[in-house]
């Protein structure tokens, strides 16, 4: 009874609050226990710049209201992933991330996931780097549980793209190991990256930058997984999923054209179940970045 009520209450909360809580906990653990190379000043600056950019964007485009939740998620993800020795780079990344939502758009959807976009630009310019191996097993397992928990608690319908991506990516890694005759400890070790979890649960699942239809999203997840593995084992570069997502993002309009679905609407979230979803299939995002409410 109590449990059911708690569950109902939790699922009625904005899933982004849950995400903010889990990302913040993880960041705290990373800084205190794992000694992530990110200073308190850098964290403050990243969060501050992201919120300011969101506010400025809201004002400039005369949107109805300022919502700090999505920029906070983007900024926390940046703090967890981006490493740099220069505070201005951290600020610039936050500005580019949130700014891209307002600038790079296609038919009222922003094209790139903000965090992903900012990270790729910073990496390409050599301003910063990502340390994907810095998590260790404990943090990784803990975060995995939290991420999976978020799927249950928020009953996020856009979990499909996350689960599809993980299934394709891990499945292909296992197939590669079998083909090479490697022990399965190798693919299991390969997925032990905090960056992969943040990517799967907080980037690729962005409802505004994924295809509108479920089949489209699954196809999109497959493309991203293939591109990620190509970057990793064909080009021998780290951070395959990030590059894979950026490379595949422009396919979204095409997939939406080929397999149309109903556009996600933040102002009318639903869990994807029930009749409402049929007439107005808006889905609760798993993760996400604030979109312009009235657009």
């Amino acid at each position, binding site marked *: 009874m109590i449990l059911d009520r708690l569950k109902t209450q939790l699922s009625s909360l904005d899933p982004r609050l849950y995400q903010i809580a889990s990302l913040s906990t993880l960041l705290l653990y990373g800084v205190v226990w794992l000694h992530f190379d990110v200073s308190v000043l850098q964290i403050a600056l990243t969060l501050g710049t992201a919120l300011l950019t969101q506010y400025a964007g809201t004002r400039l485009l005369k949107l109805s209201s300022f919502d700090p939740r999505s920029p906070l998620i983007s900024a926390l993800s940046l703090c967890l992933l981006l490493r740099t020795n220069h505070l201005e780079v951290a600020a610039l990344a936050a500005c580019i991330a949130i700014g891209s939502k307002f600038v790079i758009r296609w038919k009222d959807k922003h094209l790139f996931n903000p965090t992903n976009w900012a990270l790729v630009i910073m990496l390409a310019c050599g301003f910063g*780097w990502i340390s994907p191996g810095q998590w260790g097993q404990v943090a990784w397992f803990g975060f995995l549980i939290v991420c999976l928990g978020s799927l249950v608690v928020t009953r996020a319908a856009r979990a499909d793209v996350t689960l599809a991506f993980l299934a394709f990516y891990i499945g292909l890694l296992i197939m590669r190991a079998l083909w090479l*005759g490697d022990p399965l400890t190798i693919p299991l070790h390969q997925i032990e990256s905090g960056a992969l979890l943040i990517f799967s649960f907080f980037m690729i699942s962005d409802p505004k930058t994924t295809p509108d239809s479920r089949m489209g999203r699954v196809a999109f997840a497959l493309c991203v997984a293939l591109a990620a593995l190509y970057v990793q084992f064909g080009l021998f570069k780290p951070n395959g999923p990030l590059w894979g997502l950026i490379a595949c993002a422009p396919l979204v309009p095409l997939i939406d054209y080929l397999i149309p679905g109903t556009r996600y609407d933040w102002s009318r979230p639903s869990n994807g179940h029930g009749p409402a979803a049929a007439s107005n299939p808006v889905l609760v995002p798993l993760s996400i970045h604030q979109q312009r409410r009235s657009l």
Partner: protein
Amino acid sequence: MRRTLVSALTVFVGLLVWSGSASAFCGFYVGKADTKLFNKASEVVIARHDNKTVITMANDFKGEVKEFAMVVSVPTVLEKEQIHIGDPAVLKHLADYSAPRLVEYFDENPCQVMLYERRSMDALKSLPQAASARPERERALGVTVEAQYTVGEYDILILSAKESAGLETWLSENGYRIPAGASSVLHSYLKQGMKFFVAKVNLGEQAKLSLAHLRPLQLAFESPKFMLPIRLGTVNADGAQELFIYFLTKQGRVETTNYRTVRLPEAQEIPLYVKDTFGDFYRDLFTQQVKRESERGVFMEYAWDMNWCDPCAANPLSAEELRGLGVFWQENIGRTGRGMGQAQNVFLTRLHVRYDAAHFPEDLVFQETSDRATFQARYVLRHPWAGQDECPAATAYRQQLRERYEREAQTLATLTGWNIGDIRRTMNIETASAPIEKQWYQRLWVN
């Protein structure tokens, strides 16, 4: 006659080296008969820029030179010009320059600084060599000896194989013994397109050169893969192995992307008596850190721009020396500045890893970052001021000194896992500090 085969390998860069007794290698040792040889510590220098890579493998083999052979896996078939012999002295210089260090400071007279000296820990040495081989029947086995060169004291055979079974048969028919379990790893590497070569000591050349030790083998090649294959090295290893990797890069620090790269604790003040046992201290500290990271960490011992150091455990390497280690991107500077020509755009990262198959299932994969922040594993000895002057400041100083000794003892115990009681005894502080220990309320009301 069986030969001993050591295999080191670098996949892309792969190579494999091996050694006998107390040194290390990133390969596996194919033991001869009952000879109990195992790899302990190896040193590899990787100079890399724009996919162009030069690997220097130091060889600390301490067995019968005739028994020595090494199998190295590489990403491409190498031409003779791509294989070279390095200067062990330069490697030694690099190891000394980047070694964890002990620094001494002397307290000033509190009534009214100093001098420091350092001492460094270093890494390794090396020894002799030898063996010979001959190729036959390769075709039937799907193994082709692509080329055969003599480079310095080494005979090099470049093999191309299609099947790991053929490669294994060839190796055993030629007197090498492959440890159980290596087969699947060879199979995996072959499928990933790796090539193999065997390096043995050419006894004639070795005698002619009258060398006491085997010199480092160097390979230059171009490959997008930035990794070091360690899997073969874990196959028959008796316990964990030590590996020191020195990276010379243009942009900045290098770290592993698939394991945690951890900075060692640094700049900690430790008791003075450690000066005489710095080697033991550092070894135990390292072991303690390995445990703390659940035996899965890669440790950074040094990261510094090659232009300078502070304090210097040894002078920075000259442009000439760096070129010897494969730094190819600063030819001009090297030619102008003679002798101690200062190196520009060379960043050194020194990583130290203790690995075994259980905790390091996958080869080490690296990335170069744009981080040029400096780091050194440095430990501090602070000599107290021993003057007899009397003044309020001196009284306070002497008071603090006892607390400082206790703090240093605690630090040492935490860092190394040594027994705190033993440390206090050695420091002679038990008696000194015991009567001073006051309860909090005694300190509250000073009466």
